[in-house]
């Protein structure tokens, strides 16, 4: 089995150029970075602008301002009325939206390729010319509070994840929710939004990504015309956030909520993310997550907790490889009927201990390599997803070269690399373990 896969891999290495996406990068004079991803199968283009400002870049006490500003970016400019942006996109048969995370805020439109210039004109306009009417700000604050109620307050699992992050990150702003703490969201003002806007929304803090039926020359010409004249901001500083101190004691969290139907257990560890020019450790952790979690039928945890005995109905391992600062490695276990969270945690620990002694199954290791390679081929089917991949990477301290090297870095990972990374990251004293249940006392019995 292994020999066969090695032979297949050798074949693959000869043909990646054919299967790889066509990507071109350049920078405008005002500092705006541009990435062009060509896919000429359909006359469609995805136009995105990513800003290097996320929830983790917010001033203390202003949690949620990055996301609030994202909403307010649709409220009009000196030359366009509130809501006109989306109306024009729709009137051109397109769709648009935006999203905010810890390390970025991004805006995108999907339109016919011949409308690219119009999208650039409007996006460039709102990069520097936003106008915020006080009433629009007040109404939109109600909308984000409703959004928080929908996404977080109405969902005990989401509240639990919020608590876990706040416990994991004691000093770094990754512990603050992206949407914000409710009491701080209620106090976010028009001035707060404009302060963030004036400082961070500028070409030298933005990345333009155009993916689809375009050529780099067309994009260069249009980008120079629309984004080229914008003045850079002088408020862009290195993103040095407060970092986590060493951990001297394990942290535990128990939360109960009558809306919880199924008790669950989450364990998280602080873990390094991909670094420009040094992605090896993150690649090893990516494999580790696949080995431990991944498919229920073949993973270490699935085998131990779901197949060998009926300890759990669900297990998973997760790792966020792309992040500006240290990320997390995590496990989720949903115990089977009649199994307590304590028993489930003991089974998790036993399975991890066993893995640390025996290491990865060589056949499974090779199968994961095969899947990683194949996923690069399947990924070409979704150009919007490729655009996101570059956007996330470039707002997380990586370069186009890092993104392009990543598949090869993954293919070079050895079982020894994985065990070394596992020994370093799966360090119980720095872990946070959370129990979520309908009733804490019942579980304690």
């Amino acid at each position: 089995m292994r020999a066969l896969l090695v032979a297949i891999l050798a074949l693959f290495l000869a043909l990646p150029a054919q299967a790889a996406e066509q990507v071109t990068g350049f920078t405008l004079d005002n500092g705006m970075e541009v990435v062009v991803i060509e896919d000429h199968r359909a006359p469609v283009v995805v136009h995105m602008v990513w800003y290097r400002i996320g929830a983790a870049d917010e001033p203390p006490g202003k949690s949620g301002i990055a996301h609030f500003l994202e909403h307010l970016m649709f409220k009009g400019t000196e030359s366009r009325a509130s809501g006109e942006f989306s109306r024009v996109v729709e009137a051109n048969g397109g769709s648009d939206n935006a999203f905010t995370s810890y390390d970025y805020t991004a805006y995108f439109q999907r339109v016919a390729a011949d409308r690219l210039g119009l999208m650039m004109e409007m996006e460039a306009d709102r990069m520097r010319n936003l106008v915020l009417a006080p009433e629009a700000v007040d109404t939109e604050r109600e909308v984000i509070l409703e959004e928080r109620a929908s996404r977080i307050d109405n969902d005990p699992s989401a509240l639990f994840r919020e608590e876990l992050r706040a416990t994991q990150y004691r000093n770094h702003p990754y512990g603050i929710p992206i949407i914000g703490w409710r009491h701080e969201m209620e106090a976010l003002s028009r001035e707060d939004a404009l302060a963030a806007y004036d400082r961070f929304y500028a070409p030298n803090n933005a990345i333009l990504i155009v993916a689809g039926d375009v050529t780099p020359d067309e994009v260069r010409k249009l980008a120079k015309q629309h984004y080229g004249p914008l003045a850079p901001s002088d408020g862009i500083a290195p993103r040095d956030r407060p970092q986590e101190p060493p951990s001297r004691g394990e942290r535990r969290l128990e939360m109960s909520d009558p809306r919880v139907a199924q008790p669950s257990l989450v364990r998280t560890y602080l873990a390094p993310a991909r670094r420009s020019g040094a992605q090896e450790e993150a690649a090893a952790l990516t494999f580790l997550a696949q080995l431990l979690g991944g498919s229920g039928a073949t993973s270490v945890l699935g085998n131990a907790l779901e197949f060998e005995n009926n300890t759990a109905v669900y297990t998973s391992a997760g790792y966020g490889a792309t992040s500006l600062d240290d990320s997390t490695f995590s496990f989720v276990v949903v115990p089977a009927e009649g199994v307590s969270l304590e028993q489930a945690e003991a089974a998790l620990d036993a399975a991890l201990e066993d893995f640390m002694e025996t290491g990865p199954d060589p056949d499974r290791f090779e199968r994961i390599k095969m899947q990683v390679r194949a996923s690069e081929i399947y990924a070409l089917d979704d150009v919007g997803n490729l655009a996101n991949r570059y956007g996330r990477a470039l707002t997380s301290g990586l370069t186009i070269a890092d993104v392009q090297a990543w598949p090869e870095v993954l293919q070079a990972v050895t079982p020894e690399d994985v065990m070394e990374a596992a020994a370093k990251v799966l360090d119980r004293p720095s872990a946070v373990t959370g129990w979520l249940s309908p009733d804490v006392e019942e579980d304690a019995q």
Partner: protein
Amino acid sequence: MKRLAASFVLLLLVALPLRAEIDIAEITTPGGLKAWHVEETSIPFVALELRFRGGASLDAPGKRGAINLMTALLEEGAGDLDARGFAEAREALAASYRFSTGDDGLSISAQFLNENRDQAVALLRKALLEPRFDEDAIERVRAQILAGLKRRETDPDTIAGAAFDELAYDDHPYGSYYGGTVESVTSLTRADILDAFTRAIARDRLYIAAVGDISAEELGALLDGLLGDLPKEGAPMPENVAFGATGGITVLPFDTPQSVARFGHAGVEVGTPEFFPAFILNTIMGGGGFNSRLMTEVREKRGLTYGIRTYLIDSEFSESLIGSVSTVNARMAETIDVVRGEWERMAREGVTAEELETAKIYLTGAYPLRFDGNAPIARILVNMQMQGYPTSYVKTRNAMIEAVTLEEINRVAARLYRSDDLRFVIVGAPEELESDE
């Protein structure tokens, strides 16, 4: 939730369309199977979409959830492979098979690389023709499904959707969740699962689409090998059913800060002259864009919600026009008033010439954008077959949108939007709202 998911597929289908370059071939295999095929050679893989009409609506009486459980077991052991053996074989090929079921169909979405296509198809064939339904796999998957069913019991949105469906469709399969209940799934036996297989999976209800790096000839041989030996006939389809809920308010108390509401009444069937006008009307009312009337009134002007949407649903066996919204308990009554008011305004005044024109431009312009990958195109082509459209629909669909006149659409608006018929199901602790029954 299920209804929303189903409607989303429909909206994509109707809104979608075809990019001019797409070349859909209708093929008949040497073995007599019919399939829609698009040859797209730029990426070395194939996306294959199979859909068995009926899906979970073919559950036997008293066996709700059997077809869903059976579907989940297809990849849990087949032929000489147990669940782990099957998963290992699939991983080694880096193929992907997604088995899922819903109210209207049982779907298999497969993707496989050119380099090991024959092996990947042979493995999928095992799952379809030689599923083992081992007892240990049944118990493991049953426990997973039961965990999900328990979660549904405390999720406000799910509770609202389930109660709404029950009011609308009572004991028709649409009136209950296709995954079943804790009770029904707990009592299912291996014999029930084998029976579910013979009911749901058969050639007489199969729709096929393949998109990717494969010729028509290769595809014909592949499909005959994969599907030729399937049983010829399955269980009869359920009867059509009318939307049965009456107008009014149902409040289901639930201790949570934000109420969620599901609302709606009967809809319009695809293929009738009213369908395209109704489809455009729904786009204007609440069809998903930021500029729909409901988004403007409920979110933009009043800040009552993060999102409100409506769906014109044409399922296999019924039609409805429904919507969903959530807002803090104190403001649900106001939100309902706004929705009713917009419903009345639509019936009374219809839409303006400008609104109609804007919606047409959006719908016809968005049409080609959706054909943007092998896997999405394969799904769209199967949906089109399920709806009974010819391949030429992709070329004629925009013209049908364009042909709708202001007079025609406003005639339909007056009939379609009946605020007195709107049933609201609200889960939460809404202030100043009570059930009317």
